[in-house]
């Protein structure tokens, strides 16, 4: 197998400004027989018109899961079947990306199909009905009724960004989806799938000139004006709140977070990346919170923390690229716990978060985490598709090659820098807490009366844990009783 060699030698990240006549591109030519396309539009659900939430996602789904003008969707599926390819889509607040990988032997056929899908969509009514049904069922069944963790995590974003362009699920709401029409999709496509929003990503051993051909083909899109605008911090009042989503479920899922004024382009981002990796590296036993909640106490399956949006985390170990956002939140994800330990676990998470803010990282923890992140970026970018995705994100954030950027930034960082960044960004008293559970009462009581939530174990625990438990079981949840709301699940994403 041959492929391009250096992991970090991401070619030309073109930081050229967008113009109305020239589309931008990020190309990573190499020698791999696998050719990766990431066709990115800097538009997304934050551009959904009011009352038409879900339109950006529906438009993307219509392109990737609907027919082109010359071929029905079924004909496209049939043509791609022997190539084992497809065009996949992902819509986030500010980015819409279409991805596809073709073996070089099938490149011409695959590219022609993808080009027609994206540039000459069919917009058939039967495709529209199907993809809209899929969106409704995704919200109504897959999210509300099959995955308490993702339900809680996504609802947290809805709450934090209430009244903000980010303030609805990327797939929309059940009510808005039911009102959308195929004409809405056409209009959104015309306005947002434009050269002004386009960045072509291409990687692999493609024939010379393919990049120019793609750019020239996609120049057929209307010039348009850039959808990207400045998104302000969400208008969120101080003080913490709890929303309890009730449904018939056997366990209790907890997510919490608050907005931060930091994204990947901010000077403090590497410091917060270190802080959150130390506190709760995704799906890793190598983190503080996991050690305290799962490993020492067996409360659940895992406990993690984030400074960037990371959907579908229960299904994957590394984040998908092209979810870049101007506005991000700090988030703690507590995986489902037994109902009778729900309140204790919430207190434990808040207690540990309080300790992070109070004590920060030791020098030793800082050094180990820095070393981890420096090397781990090679894991994040080990496939060609991931490298291309990160390069597109780097272009968006204007930080240059991700691995180089991170390595250089980490090398300059000190434990004091990290601890100062924690103080600056992670210390506000405005946590939004989402709990998905059957019975809200224990949480309401814990807030209203500070009712203790003692815990018992099936095995003896060391003294330090028992001492800590004595503190945690009565740890004050700093939320006013009036700020605890109960939301039946059928009102969420409605």
């Amino acid at each position, binding site marked *: 197998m*041959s492929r391009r060699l250096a992991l970090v030698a991401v070619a030309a990240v073109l930081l050229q400004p967008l113009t109305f006549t020239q589309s931008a591109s990020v190309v990573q030519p190499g020698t791999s027989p696998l050719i990766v396309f990431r066709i990115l539009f800097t538009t997304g659900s934050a551009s959904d018109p009011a009352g038409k939430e879900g339109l950006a996602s529906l438009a993307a789904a219509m392109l990737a899961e609907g027919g082109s003008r010359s071929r029905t969707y079924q004909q496209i599926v049939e043509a791609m*079947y*022997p190539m*084992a390819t497809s065009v996949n889509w992902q819509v986030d607040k500010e980015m819409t990306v279409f991805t596809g990988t073709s073996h070089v032997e099938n490149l011409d056929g695959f590219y022609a199909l993808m080009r027609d899908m994206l540039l000459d969509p069919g917009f058939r009514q039967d495709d529209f009905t199907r993809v809209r049904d899929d969106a409704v069922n995704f919200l109504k069944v897959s999210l509300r009724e*099959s995955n308490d963790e993702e339900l809680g995590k996504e609802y947290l974003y809805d709450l934090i960004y209430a009244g903000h362009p980010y303030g609805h699920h990327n797939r929309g709401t059940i009510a808005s989806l039911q009102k959308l029409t195929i004409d809405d999709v056409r209009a959104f496509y015309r306005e947002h799938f434009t050269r002004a929003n386009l960045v072509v990503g291409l990687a692999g051993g493609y024939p010379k000139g393919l990049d120019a051909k793609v750019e020239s083909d996609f120049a057929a899109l209307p010039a348009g004006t850039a959808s990207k605008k400045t998104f302000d911090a969400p208008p969120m009042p101080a003080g913490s709140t709890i929303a309890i989503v009730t449904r018939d479920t056997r366990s209790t899922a907890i997510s919490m977070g608050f907005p931060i004024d930091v994204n990947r382009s901010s000077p403090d981002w590497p410091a917060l990346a270190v802080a959150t990796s130390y506190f709760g590296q995704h799906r890793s036993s190598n983190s503080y919170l996991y050690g305290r909640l799962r490993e020492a106490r067996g409360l*659940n399956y895992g406990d993690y923390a984030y400074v960037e949006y990371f959907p579908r985390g229960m299904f994957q170990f590394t984040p998908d690229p092209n979810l870049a956002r101007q506005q991000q939140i700090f988030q703690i994800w507590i995986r489902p716990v037994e109902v009778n330990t729900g309140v204790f676990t919430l207190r434990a998470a808040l207690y540990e978060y309080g300790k992070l803010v109070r004590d920060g990282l030791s020098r030793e923890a800082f050094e*180990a985490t820095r070393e981890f992140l420096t090397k781990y970026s090679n894991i994040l970018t*080990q496939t060609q598709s991931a490298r291309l995705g990160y390069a597109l994100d780097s272009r968006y954030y204007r930080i240059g090659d991700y691995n180089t950027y991170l390595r250089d930034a980490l090398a300059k960082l000190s434990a004091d820098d990290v601890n100062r960044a924690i103080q600056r960004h992670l210390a506000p008293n405005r946590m939004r807490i989402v709990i998905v559970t059957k019975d809200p009462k224990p949480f309401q009581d814990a807030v209203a009366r500070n009712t203790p939530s003692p815990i018992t174990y099936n095995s003896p625990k060391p003294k330090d844990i028992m001492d800590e438990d004595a503190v945690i079981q009565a740890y004050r949840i700093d939320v006013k009783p009036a700020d605890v709301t109960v939301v039946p699940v059928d009102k969420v994403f409605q």
Partner: protein
Amino acid sequence: MKARRWIVVTVFALVGIGAWYLRPATGETAGANLFTYPYSVDDLPNGLRLVTVPTDYPNMVALYIVVRAGSRDEVEPGKSGYAHLFEHLMFRGSENFTPRQRDDIMKRAGADTNASTNQDRTTYYVVFSKEDLDEVMKVEADRFQRLKYAEPAFKTESLAVLGEYNKNSAEPTQKLDEALYETAFTRHTYAHTTMGYLEDVQDMPNQYAYSLEFYKRFYTPEYATVLLVGDVTRERALELTKTYFGGWARGSYAPNIPAEPRQTEPRTAHVDWPSPTLPWVAVAFKGPAYSDTAKDKPALDLLSPMAFGPNSDLYKQLVLEEQKVDDLGADFGNHPDPELFTVYARVKNVKDLDGVRDRILATFARFTREPVDQAKLDATRSRMRYSFALRMNSSPAIAAALAPYILLTRTPDTINKVFALYQQVTPDDMRTMAAKYFTDNNRTIVTLTPKAGTK
């Protein structure tokens, strides 16, 4: 459609057939072999096998250790879920490395490390930079030979397994599968899921002594294969394997896995789901075990996407045209014993559930009578070939693709053998095999609907 029976500590998407990478190795003819990376197989005197696959992906190494212990090996009643429990316990420390010390080493290495369990195997992996190879091998070798956990740590970890059960429990297909397998299998251990029954999971904290016995049975060199893929040479891999795993003592246990008696009647089961959901139907037939010498399974592997994949007539009708179903697909993994060929459908309206079931049955029946179209068969072979080529995009991806075959035969060579069989399968073979396996008396149907009264 995802394989639903995986314990998702790690998800490796199962593809019906393995490493169809297209570049021929030096001196070989294109198309003659599927898996064309040069590899070596070395057996240690204690029964441990080392498979080394150097790739030209630089710097990174993927170490996979495949243990032939899965929920299939859980033969005692009340002891479902122990292979998976062990996957957890293996992170609880060994004689020379406490969990903290192991974590520190992995953290400094910037390693990605985890494990997964299914019916037939437990797979442990670490992905790391090549300069850390020696240390990673040393740490891994210690836990495979000298795992050491005290009873309190055992009890705590068993609660994390319960936490895993809990996080899965909101998903209706978990319950659908539990019902499907316990209905289809009456004696064989495939009757229970890898996660195990809730009551067994809840009893795990009381089974410390049994857990030690489980380790003694299966964590022995003859049950394990070390797979190293990436920026590594055979010499270095062998040297380190001998150094760190050479003293591992061979075991003597052979599980007595009960054979499943021949099914003599169609079976059905139903799950009442307590909260709102869309209804599901699963139609399953007992299929053949994995073999790289018989055509039975390759013929049905090829039929699976043709009959039920996104390009099938049924998919076109139910998903695209009539839009009665929003998820349709077949699951037919490779297993050492006969397992299930299952078609799953999520139905948009409960009134269509019986009709969808009947259409799935009619599709099975159709292929017992009609030979498939030769051009579609060729397209399917092409699809399988490229689908694997597209997966070969990193050393860990290659290791993940090999691991299931390592479990089955302990060598990547089986991939090339089974590929040769795929080339020989004819439309008539497919009809013959469909008629042999898709019989009424070999069938189990399970439905799941929201309990009356839920919206």
